[in-house]
């Protein structure tokens, strides 16, 4: 069962690289925000997988809960910040 968890964790890390493409090359700031949000929600699953591999789930589940909350607050604060700054016009691809 450890090999199943190990290979799913590796597959999850590869999927994170796909989301990292959108976070690096996104045309607008909000596209990068979508990529970062997707990576954060995958990290929540990856942390519990790491806990199952190391057999310390009771410790890693708290870290995963804190990471999910941090991800939510970061996305909310960043979207409010860029909405106030109005800095989105500069990087817009259409027009």
């Amino acid at each position, binding site marked *: 069962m450890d090999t*199943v968890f190990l290979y799913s964790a590796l597959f999850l890390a590869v999927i994170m690289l796909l989301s990292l493409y959108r976070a690096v090359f996104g045309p607008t700031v909000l596209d990068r925000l979508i990529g970062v949000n*997707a990576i954060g929600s995958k990290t929540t699953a990856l942390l519990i997988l790491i806990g199952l591999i190391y057999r310390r789930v009771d410790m890693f589940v708290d870290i995963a809960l804190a990471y999910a909350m941090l991800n939510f607050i970061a996305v909310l604060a960043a979207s409010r910040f860029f909405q106030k700054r109005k800095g989105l016009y500069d990087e817009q691809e259409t027009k």
Partner: protein
Amino acid sequence: MINFIVTALLICGLIFFFGGAVGIIRMPDFYSRLHPAGKLDTMGLLMTMIAMALYSLHEFSVDAILTSMKIILIVVFVFITSPTATHAIVDAGVRAGLEPWTKEGKGAYYDMGT
């Protein structure tokens, strides 16, 4: 038996994560990219977390029940926060005046049909 269920749920969740990641790359527009981004949060995380909660319950004790309850609580928390985060990103895009993608390449913002 429980190993088979856990593996099947884990593979289903990974398929949802993979589809969401491919959708985030391939969708043409910022607004349409938010759709797979919202889906992979809820469905993929639900299936993988249920799989891991079942696996951590296979030796039955009070600690295992507490760990499983915490994992399910993460799912409940993400089900509340993920639509909120997605809506906040959409709201920022609408207020900044980003135009949605149309087949002609350009479209007026409040006139989505043409």
